[in-house]
C-alpha cells in the first residue's frame, strides 16, 4: 500500500478540529474513509462536525472536548484516545491564536498566552504523541503542524505570534531531522499564508493573496501524500517570504507590516 491511501484512510488525530482549515481538511479525509479523532473545546460543535464527516464517509469519528492549552495530562489523554481509536497513525496540529499584539506589546500575560497556545502546548502534544506513532503500522506515521509565514521574520504587527510560530517551525524542522535518521516517521511543517477563516475575519480578508480554507485543505491533503518536510501554502509564499527575509533591515524597518 502506498503512503497516500495508507495514511489518508488511517487513524488521524486532529488537534484544533474546529478551525476552518482543520474542518475543510477533515472533510477531505472523510472522503478517503479516514478514522478521525477530533479534539477541540466545544462538544456541541465537535458533534456538528462529527455528523457531517460521518455522512461524507469517514469510517469512524470520535470527539474529544479538551482544552489543548490548559490540559495537564496530555500523555494520558493521548493514551485514552489511542486506546479508543485502536492507535494513531497521524496527528495534524491546527490550533493556534493570533492574539492581540498591541496588548502583547506591554502585557506579559498576553505574550505568555500567545506563546503557550502556539508553541509550548503544541510542542508538548507533539512530543507526547511520538510513542504512539512509533507503535503505528502505517508506512510513514506523520506529524503535520500548521505553522505560519509570520514565523519567518519578526514584524511589529504580530511578532509574539510570529515568534511562537517560528519556534514551532524550528521544533518541527528539528524533529524532521531526528526522524530522517530512521526514515519511517515524518514531521511536516506547513507555513500557511493568508486564509479566510474566523481567525482573520476581523481583517480585510479579500484580495489575491487570500485563499479559502478548502484550497488550503486540498494543499494539505496533497502534502500528506508527498515527501518533504517544509511546505508553504499556498506555494507562492515561498517566494514572498524569500523576499521578506532578504530585505535589509534599514529598508524593512521603514515598512509597516
Amino acid at each position, binding site marked *: 500500500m502506498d503512503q497516500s491511501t495508507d495514511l489518508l484512510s488511517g487513524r488521524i488525530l486532529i488537534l484544533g478540529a*474546529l*478551525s*476552518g482549515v482543520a*474542518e475543510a481538511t477533515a472533510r477531505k479525509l472523510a472522503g478517503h474513509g479516514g478514522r478521525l479523532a477530533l479534539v*477541540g*473545546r*466545544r462538544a*456541541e*460543535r465537535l458533534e*456538528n*462536525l462529527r*455528523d*457531517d464527516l460521518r*455522512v*461524507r464517509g469517514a469510517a469512524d469519528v470520535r470527539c474529544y472536548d479538551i482544552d489543548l*492549552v490548559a490540559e495537564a495530562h496530555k500523555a494520558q489523554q493521548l493514551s485514552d484516545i489511542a486506546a479508543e481509536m485502536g492507535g494513531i497513525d497521524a496527528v495534524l496540529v491546527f*490550533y*493556534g*491564536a*493570533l492574539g492581540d499584539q498591541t496588548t502583547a506589546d506591554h502585557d506579559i500575560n498576553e505574550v505568555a498566552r500567545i506563546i503557550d*497556545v502556539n508553541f509550548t502546548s503544541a510542542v508538548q502534544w507533539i512530543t507526547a504523541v511520538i510513542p504512539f506513532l512509533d507503535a503505528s503500522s502505517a508506512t510513514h506515521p506523520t506529524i503535520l503542524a500548521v505553522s505560519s509565514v509570520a514565523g519567518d521574520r519578526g514584524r511589529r504587527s504580530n511578532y509574539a505570534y510570529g515568534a511562537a510560530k517560528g519556534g514551532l517551525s524550528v521544533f518541527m524542522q528539528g524533529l524532521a531531522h531526528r526522524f530522517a535518521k530512521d526514515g519511517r516517521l515524518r514531521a511536516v511543517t506547513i507555513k500557511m499564508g493568508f486564509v479566510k*477563516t*474566523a*481567525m*482573520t*475575519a*476581523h481583517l480585510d480578508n479579500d484580495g489575491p493573496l487570500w485563499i479559502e480554507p478548502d484550497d488550503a485543505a486540498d494543499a494539505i491533503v496533497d502534502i500528506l501524500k508527498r515527501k518533504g518536510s517544509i511546505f508553504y501554502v499556498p506555494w507562492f509564499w515561498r517566494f514572498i517570504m524569500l523576499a521578506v527575509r532578504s530585505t535589509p533591515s534599514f529598508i524593512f524597518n521603514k515598512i509597516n507590516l
Partner: protein
Amino acid sequence: MTADGANGAFQDRNRRSWGRVARRPHKVASPRFRDEVQAVLVGGCQSYKSVLGVGLGRSYSDSCLNPDGAVVDTTALDRLIAFDGESGVLRVESGASLWDILEFAVPRGFFLPTTPGTRYVTVGGAVANDVHGKNHHRAGTFGNHVLSLGLMRSDGQELRVSRDQNPDLFQATVGGLGLTGLILWADLKLTRIPSSHISQQSIPFHSVSEFFDLACESERDFEHTVAWVDCLSAGDNLGRGIFSRGNWSEVGSLTNEPARNRLSIPFDPPAMALNQFSVRAFNEAYFKLNKARAGESTVKYGPFFYPLDAIRHWNRMYGAQGFYQYQSVVPPNVARDATAEMLKEVSHSGQGSFLAVLKTFGDVKSPGMLSFPAPGATLALDFPNRGEETLRLLSRLDRVVDNAGGRLYPAKDGRLPPEQFWRGYPDAETFREYVDPKFSSEFWRRMIAG
C-alpha cells in the same frame, strides 16, 4: 480568532446583487455553527432595524440585500447532518451550496430533485426562492422536495416547519424570500440517477409556435426540456431558437466534474463590448452553429445544467452598470401570443442579449405562497443596464405580462413594480401575516411601500 472557531460578530461589508445594478454597505455576520445563530440573530435584531439571511448572493434583484439593516451570511453553515441512503433524504445546513450536495451525492448515485442553472446557490436560497429547473413539468419546484425545515425566528425560537408541522409557515417560508425567519437546515429528498450523464437532443425551431409544439410533444418522454431563443431575430426569424431535451443516460459512470472554474472575468469590460451588433452577430452565429450541430449526444451533467458555472463572475460581462434579468410566466391559454409579443418588443428595441431562455412549466402545484412557477410558459431575458431606455422596455414587457394574467420572478427583478407584484401573487396578503416582524429586505420594503 476565538479558540472555539466562532465567527458571529457583525462587520461592515459591501454587498451587491448578482445583477450588480445596486451595491450597498451592509452589516454582515457569518456564524459558523448552529449554536451561534441564536445570539447572532437576537443581537442583530436589537442593534439594527432589521435582519435578513443571505447565501451566495445569486439573486439578481434586491431581494438579497438589506442595506440600513443587517444580514446573516449563512454560507459557513454548510454541513451535512444526516443521510438516508435508502430514501435519499439528506438533512443539510442551509448555507451548503448545491455544489456541496452534488459533490457528495453524485458518486452515491443521487442528484438534486431539480436544479436551477447554477450550482452556486445555497440550500436556504433555493428554498427561499423556490427555484425551478428544466424538469419542472415532471418534478415541480425545489420546494416540492423539501420535507421539513428548521426555521429560527427573530425571538430566537427554533421552529420545525413542514407540511404537517406549522404548515402555514412552511407555505410562507418556501418561496418566502427569506422574510419568515432564518432557515437553519432542510430535509431534502434527493433523486436517484443511473449515471451522471444526460442523453440530449438539440432541435432547431423557427417560430414561437414551433417551440410550443416541440415542448408539448417532448414533455411526456423527456425529463428535461428548455430552449434558447434568439431574442434579437425579427420578421420571419422571430422566435427562432434551439430546443434542448434530455434524460439521464442509463449508461455511464457516476462522477463529478471538478468544481474549479477555468475561465473567469476578472474585471468589468467596457460596456460597449456588448452592443446590439455584437449580440446580434453572436446570436446569429450561435443559432447557425447549433442548427448545424443538431442531433443526439451524451453530455456530462455540468455543461447540460450549468453552462455558465464554467465562467466565474460571468455577471461582469455586462460592464460596471450591471444588468437586469426579467423572467415572467404567462398562463397556457395565452402563452403563445404573449411570448411572441414579448419577443417582438425585445427584438424591436434591439436591447436583448444572448441569454434568453424559454420553457414551459407543468401542472405540479408549487408549495409556497410566493412561489413563482405556475402552469404556462416562462421566458427569461437579460438586459444590460442602459438606464431609462432599459426601464422603458421592461415597462412595455410588464404590460404584456399583466394583460396575459402572468407574473414576474422577484429573485430576478430589481425593479418589479409593487402593483404588479401584489396583482401577480394573490396569496401575498396572506403571506404578509407570516413575515417575521424583524426580517426585511430592500425588495420587501419596496413592495410594502407600494
